[in-house]
């Protein structure tokens, strides 16, 4: 019995140690990450950030394709407006829109514009208004490959469709040879990877194939991969990992992933020279887009079959989705301040440094007017 009491005492003291340890722990952490994030050139002047009376926590959810852009913006914005905390969760476009129509978030990020039924659903959240799409970020989708000894590969839409539909199975196939007369193509099996999860990247990539090679690519498209055959991996990270590891692999991914052993292919669009996947070329392609949204909605339709010089057609535009009227009162000021900033010139300038394409001036000007009228 005596022994047991001693044990209890020991257990108690252990518990005390644990609790005090936890208390000590809460005291020593810090949010101040200081100047360790170096290499930022635009930190200087941010006159375009007007905090006004904005404060509080802003929750947002959506596309992971624009996550890094949002991160960069939030960094600038929060340094200026200390009272606002912006919390963007990159769960995916669909999750973002769902969270928006359920009223969980102040704004959503999405790779595709709202569908009619989603607009209807948004009317329950936005009093007297509806959800609208504001194009804020563009980005090239690179076709990355890993073929030892082959640099500057050129592909066109028909070959791409053939490769991803398992019609072209060897790297020294005649169709690829024809486009790359100077390259020494190995007799290597092509391992075409696609995304196993649903994603806006897949959607935009297949939309390009449908528009530019309608005879070769006969699937409907959509966020889920439709063609049979080939290999798959989860997320852009997973796809990039596989392309790095497997010789002969090819896949599509956001430009920022195409590095460290992955080369981005050039695209023969019918322009005078093959187009590289770069930020500038993506902006050129977006400039060709039409606004198809009505009213305050600024949904874009890209011209994916473009043959213009220096326009990279496999491009993705991501939107911020907000209510035009009837945003929640407590978050309206902060939302407006943040969106005003990212649509401003300073905000758009941040994009190019992060492998994203700014939205062309003509369209972003409309976005600014719309943001100013949010209520």
């Amino acid at each position: 019995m005596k022994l047991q009491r001693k044990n209890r005492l020991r257990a108690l003291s252990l518990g005390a140690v644990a609790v005090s340890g936890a208390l000590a722990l809460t005291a020593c952490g810090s949010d101040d990450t200081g100047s360790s994030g170096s290499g930022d050139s635009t930190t200087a002047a941010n006159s375009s950030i007007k905090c006004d009376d904005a404060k509080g926590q802003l929750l947002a959810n959506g596309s992971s394709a624009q996550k890094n852009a949002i991160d960069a913006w939030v960094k600038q914005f929060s340094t200026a407006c200390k009272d606002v905390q912006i919390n963007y969760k990159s769960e995916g476009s669909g999750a973002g829109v769902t969270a928006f129509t359920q009223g969980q978030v102040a704004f959503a990020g999405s790779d595709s514009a709202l569908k009619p039924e989603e607009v209807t659903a948004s009317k329950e959240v936005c009093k007297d208004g509806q959800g609208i799409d504001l194009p804020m970020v563009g980005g090239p989708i690179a076709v990355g490959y890993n073929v030892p000894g082959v640099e500057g590969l050129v592909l066109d839409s028909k070959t791409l469709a053939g490769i991803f539909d398992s019609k072209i199975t060897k790297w020294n196939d005649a169709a690829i040879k024809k486009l790359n007369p100077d390259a020494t193509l190995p007799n290597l099996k092509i391992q075409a990877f696609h995304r196993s999860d649903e994603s806006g990247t897949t959607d935009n990539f297949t939309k390009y194939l449908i528009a530019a090679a309608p005879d070769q690519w006969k699937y409907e498209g959509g966020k889920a991969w439709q063609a049979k055959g080939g290999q798959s991996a989860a997320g852009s990270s997973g796809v990039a990992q596989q392309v790095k590891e497997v010789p002969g692999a090819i896949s599509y991914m956001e430009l920022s992933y195409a590095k460290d052993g992955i080369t981005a292919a050039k695209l023969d669009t019918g322009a005078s020279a093959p187009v590289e996947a770069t930020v500038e070329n993506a902006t050129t392609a977006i400039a060709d887009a039409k606004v198809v949204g009505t009213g305050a909605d600024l949904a874009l339709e890209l011209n994916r079959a473009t043959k213009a010089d220096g326009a990279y057609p496999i491009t993705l535009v991501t939107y911020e989705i907000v209510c035009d009227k009837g945003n929640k009162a407590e978050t309206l000021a902060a939302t407006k301040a943040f969106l005003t900033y990212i649509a401003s010139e300073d905000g758009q300038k941040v994009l190019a440094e992060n492998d994203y394409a700014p939205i062309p001036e003509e369209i972003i000007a409309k976005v600014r007017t719309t943001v100013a009228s949010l209520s």
Partner: protein
Amino acid sequence: MEISTKNPDNSDNPDNADNPGNPESLEAPSRLSPPSGAEQKRAARGATRPGDRIFLGLSRGSGIFLLVIMAAIAIFLTYRSVLAISKDESNFLTTLEWNPTAAEPSFGIAVLVYGTVVSSIIAMVIAVPIAVGIALFITHYAPRRLGGAISYVIDLLAAVPSIVYGLWGALVLAPHLIGLYGWLDDYFGWTGILDWQGGAPRSLFTVGILLAIMILPIITSVSREVFRQAPQMHQEAALALGATRWEVIRMSVLPFGRSGIISASMLGLGRALGETMAVATVLSSSFEINASLLDPGGGTFAQNIASKFSEATVMGRDALIASGLVLFVITLLVNGAARMIIARRAEYSGANA
């Protein structure tokens, strides 16, 4: 204890027949025999003291609490699933595609059932014998100090987050399997099941191996605890009769631990069936059924939910929930089968040892 709830009539005979050496076996199994009137009276008498009543109330309350949560989840799932399935234009059980957002929603779970069952079977076939082996190693073979260290490491591995298992599987395990795959293809390719076209080895077979590694710690830990409790007297008696170490284990440890091993395996299987991130990272999934285990393709319930969930519309979510409900049913069937096995061979399980 399940015997009394499932199969009370069966437990009585083997109990006495197989265990004649135990003088207590007639008296002891207060829960093994069907609840007789006298026993209920005894239980009732025990519960008349205030402390007992409070304690009984507390533990029964916990049971009811758990029941209420689960019933709520079950109702919620069923409700959402019915919403989804009623809109499904094709047969939910046999369709080989997943397209819930189309104008005419069409989705089915055939691929997922196949993938889940196959990968779990592979995982169990690999993991259970090895886990039992390690548990025996720790309790009966290894030097005591080494055994302690190993069991500690094994417990630790249960904590590795599944995303890390997934990354390890994709970066380390899969490349190492190329040789094995080639081998299997060379010698067993003619079976069709082990045919391999080449390509990255990220198939259901790899997933099975990875799942086996993931569930090893759970099965090992629980079996180890069970083997530790094996009655020392029986083992010493067997040794005294000149039995080898294996005979001791076979005759006194394994029968004693049978129900524990099965329960442990069920816990492991539960994790294998519901494993999400690791499978999603390693499997090269597609919505088709391949006869070959080595070629990429297929999918599992949890992996499919994880892959489609983030981009799903409300209808898509409901469809995924419906597939989750099927996973429930599968788990239930497997667990039920396991409980029946335990009940049939109940002589050692429980307190009459």
